[in-house]
């Protein structure tokens, strides 16, 4: 049925300034969407170059320092400019106010400032890339980054410093909004688990990011004035840098995965038409991950020269942080029991997430065991582990979320057939790329090697991995193409195409500027699919 051209947040204001100076959380979400996709394809391009380089044992595609710059830039762009902002800044910005029935975030202008900080950081990183790049790895460890390289560390570090504040401000906005601006009746136990996940993410963003900001200030001072804060010859201790760096960077991986968990929870509940199994356990496991995430950072440093007893403490705590993730996986699987499961594209991504996150999480157990960590850390086993969690988990969750809420964001339906095909290609390409790296890791191929001609036996697995990378690259291009296509030619979307539970589906799509025409009052429980599927009401036409 053709939607009458109704006034919504997209066509209310026109012109460049209406976008660049908007304080509407939905428009800021779209601004983030465009800038994040841009950085995602830059990082992805670097990843492809890295994989191509590793096709042959001898380093013949690029020189040594170019390769070092490639993997450093791939790391920095993907971590700080895609993974950390992706779901919180795009889906979070768009949906958090709508899901709790608010008109907008608590501080709309700070939200716009957060996007501008992200763009300033991004431009600084691009400039740093184009004028020479950085060759220290995204972890820029102390004695090398501060004294033994003259690539543009200070500029890249300041770019991350500025982008870090964008992440802090988003976290601040979410915490205050979730506490203060819930619609009447929206108690904490009625909140969608997407909101719980973003609340936990914001806690980490708020308490973790400042520590890396300080570390960057110290690194900049050290490089500018040769002070010796981390330089062993002048009395400094490189391990102190690693402690301060990983204190943020480990919780940062939870910033990346928690929102994806929130998205997957919503998708699984909606497509199995069922309430989530053990709602309070899943909610509190998000908070537990956020808090325990701060206790475990030194499992990245077991072989770095840390004392043996500290390694014991951190290994024990690392196992404690694995339990909440295990609870979540069990609850998701239990939700499928006795459901009525539909296989739309978002559900395929959710299944992909479930499978790959389980493998990623379990290989984390290998890395937390002290005995094995000594052998596998700094090898391709670690690379495979964190790619399974980041790409298998966070990116799958992000794509699933984009498909699930695309009708709400753009008011158009994406082509279902193509979407399922893309999900399959991404799944196959991913496994082909990263599973061989587990074997490579245990066989002992170290990380960040551009030339392994000394050990040619690793070549077969590397060739497999590169083949997978190209398939994965194609898999990622498809969604972008058909999303853009659907903006123009897609069928107009009804208010609730998936007949999903949640306040954001109660308002027309695309939603009006103030989200709700009249103030919503919540009287139902979180995932009330029995009311939604009740035959008494006329069956809402579920678009296929």
């Amino acid at each position, binding site marked *: 049925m053709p939607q009458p051209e109704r006034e919504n947040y997209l066509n209310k204001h026109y012109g460049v300034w209406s976008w660049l*100076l908007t*304080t509407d959380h939905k428009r800021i979400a779209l601004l983030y969407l465009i800038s994040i996709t841009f950085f995602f394809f830059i990082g992805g391009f670097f990843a492809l170059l890295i994989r191509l380089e590793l096709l042959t044992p001898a380093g013949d595609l690029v020189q040594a320092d170019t390769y070092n710059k490639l993997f450093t830039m791939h790391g920095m762009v993907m971590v700080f400019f895609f993974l950390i902002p992706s779901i919180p800044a795009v889906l979070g910005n768009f949906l958090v106010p709508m899901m709790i029935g*608010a*008109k*907008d*975030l*608590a*501080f*709309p*202008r700070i939200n716009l400032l957060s996007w501008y900080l992200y763009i300033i950081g991004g431009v600084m990183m691009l400039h740093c890339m184009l004028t020479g790049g950085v060759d220290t790895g995204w972890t820029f460890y102390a004695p090398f980054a501060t004294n033994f390289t003259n690539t543009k560390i200070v500029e890249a570090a300041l770019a991350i410093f500025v982008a870090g504040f964008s992440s*802090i401000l988003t976290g*601040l906005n979410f*915490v*205050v*909004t979730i*506490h*203060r*601006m819930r619609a009447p009746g929206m108690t904490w136990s009625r909140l969608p688990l997407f909101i719980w996940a973003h609340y936990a993410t914001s806690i980490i963003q*708020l*308490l*973790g*990011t*400042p*520590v890396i*900001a*300080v*570390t960057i*200030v*110290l690194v900049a*001072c*050290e490089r500018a*004035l*040769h*002070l*010796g*804060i981390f330089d062993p*010859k*002048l*009395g*400094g*201790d490189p391990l*102190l840098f690693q*402690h*301060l760096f990983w*204190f943020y960077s480990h919780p940062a991986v939870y910033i990346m995965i928690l929102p994806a968990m929130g998205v997957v929870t919503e998708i699984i509940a909606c497509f199995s038409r069922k309430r989530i199994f053990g709602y309070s356990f899943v909610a509190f496991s998000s908070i537990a991950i956020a808090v325990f995430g701060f206790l475990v950072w030194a499992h990245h440093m077991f072989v770095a020269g840390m004392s043996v007893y500290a390694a014991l403490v951190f290994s024990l705590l690392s196992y404690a942080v694995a339990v909440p993730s295990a609870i979540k996986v069990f609850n998701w699987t239990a939700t499928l029991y006795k459901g009525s499961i539909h296989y739309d594209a978002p559900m395929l991504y959710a299944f992909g997430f479930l499978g790959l996150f389980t493998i990623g999480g379990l290989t984390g157990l290998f890395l937390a065991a002290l005995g094995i960590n000594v052998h596998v850390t700094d090898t391709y086993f670690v690379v495979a582990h964190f790619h399974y969690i980041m790409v298998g988990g966070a990116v799958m969750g992000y794509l699933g979320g984009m498909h699930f809420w695309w009708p709400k964001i753009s008011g158009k339906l994406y082509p279902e057939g193509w979407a399922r095909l893309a999900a399959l290609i991404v799944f196959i390409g991913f496994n082909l790329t990263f599973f061989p790296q587990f074997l490579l890791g245990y066989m002992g191929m170290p990380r960040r090697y551009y030339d392994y001609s000394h050990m040619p036996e690793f070549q077969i697995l590397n060739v497999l991995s590169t083949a997978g990378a190209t398939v994965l690259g194609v898999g990622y291009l498809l969604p972008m193409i058909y999303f853009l296509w659907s903006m123009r030619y897609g069928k107009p979307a009804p208010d609730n195409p998936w007949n999903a539970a949640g306040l954001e589906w109660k308002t027309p799509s695309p939603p009006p500027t*103030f989200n709700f025409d009249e*103030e919503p009052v919540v009287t139902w429980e979180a995932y009330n699919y029995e009311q939604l599927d009740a035959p008494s009401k006329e069956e809402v036409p579920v678009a296929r």
Partner: protein
Amino acid sequence: MPDSSAATGLHAEAHNPALLHHFAEPQQQRDAASLGMWVFLATEVMFFGGLFCAYLIYRRLYFGDFAAASKTINMGLGATNTAVLICSSLTVVLAVWAAQTARRTLLITSLIITMLLGLVFLGIKGIEYREKFVEHHVPGASFSFDKVPIPGHPGQYADPHHAQLFFSLYFVMTGLHALHMIIGLGIFLWLLIMAWKGRFTPEWHTPVEIGGLYWHFVDIIWIYLFPLLYLIDRHP
């Protein structure tokens, strides 16, 4: 920047011009603002926390050299600075109280006194930095720190590298604190302008409270900085 939110806010609730459009009523907006500031202060605690962690560890590793370096800093100036900041905290609390009870003159005078005390603090800090500059204790190329005895260990001299470590941490920590002080002065200048225009009423004076919270936080950081940096080993 066109204040689009204020314009659209009008149709929601006309009587209070300062109520932003997306809040239901003023109490919600005030609570949101104060929670926002408190959470921001939590991030600042972690920001300085990272520095305190580095300082704690290096002080434990090189206690003698840190004590020697700390002895060369002027304790008197540090103590007066602490007193200055405590007085400024008092005037800030008076300002908040004045805003609550609609005492416009008291509000304006206490805001001005707070800013003056802030400038005095930065002045004293400038004197200290100049003193360090003259004694070549500023880390970097011109740093020289030889033949300085370690307190309590007669005859033993401090290692210049470790002393430079102390001074780099000293300058980074007090420098960042001074930067936060300058930002605080900017906020209070903006508060002064709004108070002068009479924008604050007993119902709506959130910016004064928020500015007060921020200033008190900067004072608390200095309360910890002073003993840690200045008073390591002052006995003769």
